[in-house]
Structure formats: structure tokens, C-alpha cells
């Protein structure tokens, strides 16, 4: 943001009383560049401090490898084929966990939001199940599915499900009653017509926000779900840490950050397209 020229400044064109001076494009541009520069500077300082800490001997490099050691570790990991292997496995878990968790969560949330009776019916069951973290399901996941990709996917589904369930439930319950009356007044009286023409579009913003939260939550669950031995990036991180190969651990942390960033950017682009009607 540019700050407007103080009106009392000598030589400044006097604006009409009560009117803000519109920021000119000429002034706005450097400001946006400044913001970008500050963001970049933040990253540089962060990396510099990180680099300095092990190099100055404040922490042993084996406990915290400097960032300059990471590219080399990354190349070695890719060359060995382990990186691609782990990523492909994890992406498969991520994809299915996200898909199943989101679809079932949104469907359950929308249905519950549309029916008072269903909400009452499920309220205590939801209260019982919701606080149980995904990781607490690991024993059952192993008993039911073994140490398999299905077990990992199951853990991810659970985490993603609740986020989407509550987002969709809240969104549907918050739909303006007046809009439902409008649907009645113009002949759209069936539940299905109201769902399609009013409820889903009206709730779409909050549902998409839930979906986006799920994108991040699913990555967290991927690591957790693979820690118990299902092949993937979580498992590879555990192996690396037991060998004190901390640089490899960081390679995977960075990989996750990168994938999350890409997925999130793609999601935001799609969302902005869908929500272009918003003011």
C-alpha cells in the first residue's frame, strides 16, 4: 500500500475535502516491488542464520546440517532412485487419502447440514470420534489393513474427512434462509433443486476453504501414516534419521514444502476461477 501524500504538505495538490488521493500506478509499483524484496530478504536472512549456526560450531552439523549441504544430499538421493520411489508412493497415498477424505467429508457435512434430524442423530457419535487424532488409529489401521498403502491412505482419509465434514456442515447451515425462500418463490421447491441451485453454490466458499485446509493436513498425515513402515517419504525420513542422515531428512522436508506449495498454488488458481463472482 502507498500512503497518501499528507494534504498539508506544501506543493501537494489539494484534494477535495474528505476525499482520498488515489494512489497512482507510478507510486504503487515500486511499493509492490519493495514488498517482494522484503520477502526475499527474509528468506536470505533465514538461510544465513541457519548456515551460520552449524558453521560457527553452535550446533554440531550432524544435528543440524547447513543449507549449503542440502543440494548435494538431494542430488545423491535422486541418483540412488530412492527419492522418486518415496515420492511416488507418498503421492499415491496423498491423492487417494485426499480424494476419499474430501468427497466423503463434504458429502457427509452437506447431508448433515440439510437435515436437522440427521444432525441430532449423529451429534454424539461425532463428538466421540472427532477428538481422536489420526495417529491413534494406526493400531487399527495395521490390524485391519496390515502395513499396506491402504492403511496409510486410511489414516490420511480420517484427518481430511473431519476438516471437510465440519467445513461443509457449517457452510450449509449458514446458508441464508431468504435464498431458500427465493427458490420456493420461483418454483424450485424440491430438496434437490435447492441443493443444486442454492445450497451448494452458497456454501462453496467455505467448502473450498475446508478443502484447502485438507490439502495441508493431508501432507501431515502422509508423514504420520508412513512412519510405521509403509513405503513413502515418511518411512524414508525415519530410516534417514536412524542413520543420523539429517541432511536427507531435510531433503524430504523441503520436498514436502515444495509439493504443498505447488498443490496449494494450483488450488488457489482454480478456486479464484470458481469464486470470481465474489466482490
Amino acid at each position, binding site marked *: 500500500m502507498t500512503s497518501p501524500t499528507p494534504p498539508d504538505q506544501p506543493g501537494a495538490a489539494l484534494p477535495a475535502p474528505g476525499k482520498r488521493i488515489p494512489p497512482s500506478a507510478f507510486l504503487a509499483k515500486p511499493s509492490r516491488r519493495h514488498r517482494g524484496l522484503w520477502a526475499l530478504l527474509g528468506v536470505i536472512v533465514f538461510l544465513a542464520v541457519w548456515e551460520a549456526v552449524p558453521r560457527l560450531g553452535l550446533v554440531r552439523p550432524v544435528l543440524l546440517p547447513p543449507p549449503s549441504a542440502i543440494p548435494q544430499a538431494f542430488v545423491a538421493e535422486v541418483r540412488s532412485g530412492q527419492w522418486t520411489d518415496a515420492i511416488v508412493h507418498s503421492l499415491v497415498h496423498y491423492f487417494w487419502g485426499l480424494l476419499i477424505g474430501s468427497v466423503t467429508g463434504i458429502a457427509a457435512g452437506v447431508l448433515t447440514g440439510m437435515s436437522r434430524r440427521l444432525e441430532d442423530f449423529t451429534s454424539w457419535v461425532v463428538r466421540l470420534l472427532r477428538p481422536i487424532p489420526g495417529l491413534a488409529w494406526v493400531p487399527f489401521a495395521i490390524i485391519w489393513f496390515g502395513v499396506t498403502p491402504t492403511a496409510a491412505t486410511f489414516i490420511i482419509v480420517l484427518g481430511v474427512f473431519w476438516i471437510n465434514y465440519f467445513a461443509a456442515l457449517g457452510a450449509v447451515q449458514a446458508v441464508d434462509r431468504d435464498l431458500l425462500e*427465493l427458490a420456493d418463490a420461483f418454483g424450485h421447491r424440491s430438496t434437490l433443486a435447492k441443493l443444486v441451485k442454492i445450497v451448494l453454490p452458497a456454501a462453496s466458499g467455505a467448502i473450498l476453504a475446508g478443502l484447502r485446509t485438507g490439502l495441508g493436513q493431508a501432507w501431515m498425515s502422509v508423514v504420520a501414516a508412513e512412519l510405521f513402515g509403509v513405503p513413502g517419504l515418511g518411512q524414508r525420513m525415519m530410516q534417514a534419521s536412524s542413520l543420523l542422515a539429517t541432511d536427507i531428512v531435510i531433503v524430504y522436508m523441503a520436498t514436502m514444502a515444495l509439493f504443498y506449495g505447488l498443490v496449494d498454488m494450483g488450488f488457489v488458481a482454480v478456486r479464484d476461477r470458481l469464486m470470481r463472482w465474489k466482490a
Partner: protein
Amino acid sequence: MIEIRDLSLAFPNPASPDGRTVVLRDFNLSVAPGEFIAIVGASGVGKSTLLRVVAGLVPPNSGTVSHAQGGGPLTGRRPYGLVFQDARLLPWRTVRANVAFGLEGLGLSRAERRRRAEEALALVGLADKAGRWPHQLSGGQRQRVAIARALAVDPDLLMMDEPFGALDAITRQSLQDELLDLWRRTAKTILFVTHDIDEAVYLADRVILLAGSPATVRSEDHIATPRPRARDDSAARALVTRIRDRLSDLMDGGGI
């Protein structure tokens, strides 16, 4: 054309001795085709509820609303068009798609819906705004879109629930004149609810005063003054004063 007979409506109310509050009692009204009827009354008297009963949104406790099809068969049409106080546009639909809202489910082709929506938009002078989003319009424009949406279904009866109540005075006056113009061109029958007596007297052929609890018809005035009417017409001013006096007498006398 529209016959409302002995209409009564009560809402459940646990606090009252008989467990309900009667909102409306023995309401009768016959509306001739092409007539412009205004229903006035204090806020909360039940005017809006009356419209909702007539539109079939709320079932009455007793009485009937019969609807002789004056405007021809109801294919590709709806019997009623409603305009609310808030424009109530769907923000995720373009202006054109908002106007086409009531046309969906009538068995019309997409092209036909589009044509009818654009016709209705042209009627309210917003043909060039068809592709806009509602948030890009002014309050007056939004309400005109709402009127276009109601007209697009080619209703026998256009019902308006304080449609200009939320607009500023200048926009309100220009929309009143636009509505009269629309009414003249489309020959629609209009049931117009307002708490603004000036507005009712300026617009309508007949002004019905609704007052009391439960609400009943307290007076009915025919206004023969041809249009265009002057806003400062002395006969109209006198009628506004009479209706206002009646309303305050009713309030003072505990009639409300």
C-alpha cells in the same frame, strides 16, 4: 382473476393462552386483471405474510386463494412473480442468470431462457448489464434486476414486498416511475405492499389499509386520478392525510 376468500393465518405461539397468534383474520380481496393494488400498514402488521400466503409460500389456516388464469395457459410461465425488499440476487450468478432463475424447470430450452431473460432485462433498461455480477451493480440496479427476474416468468400476478423500502429517496422515486411505465407496457396485475402511504397513493388504483392484531382490512380507497400523476396533487395529498389519520386513530384507540 385473483380471489382471496376469508383468509386467516396464525402462527404457533407457546406464550399465548390458546397456543397461537392470529396474524391475519378474514381477509378478502378480488383483484381484477391489470389492476394495481397497494396494501399499506404499519411494519409487522402482516402485509408481507399476506403476500407469502397468496404466493403459496405459507399455507393459510383457513380461507382460499383462487387463481383464475387470466393470462392464458401456464406453459413456460409461473402464476406469480415476487420481488422482495432486498433484491435477493444470487451473487454467484451473472445478472442474466439471475433473471433466468425462475425460468429453469419450466421445460424451456437454454436459448429460450436466455432470450426471455434478456427481454426482461431490456424492459428494466439493463440489457447492457446482462454479463455483470450482482456486486457490480448499484442498489437501484439490483432491485431492477429483481423486478426483471419476476417479470421474466411472465406471471399473472406480480407481487412486490416493499420493493423500494431499502433505497434512497431519489432512486426510490425514479424506480416508482419506472414501475408505472413497466405496468403500462406489460399490463401486469400488481399487488404492492408498502408502509409508505405516499408511495401507495402515487402508484395504485386501489389502496387497502391493513391494521390491527390480528390484521384486518380497515379501509379501501379507489384512486381514479389518471397517470402520469403529479406527486404534489392536492387530492392525493388529502387522501394520504386521511389514511394516515385513520392509521393513527387506530393506533391511539388501541386498535393495534
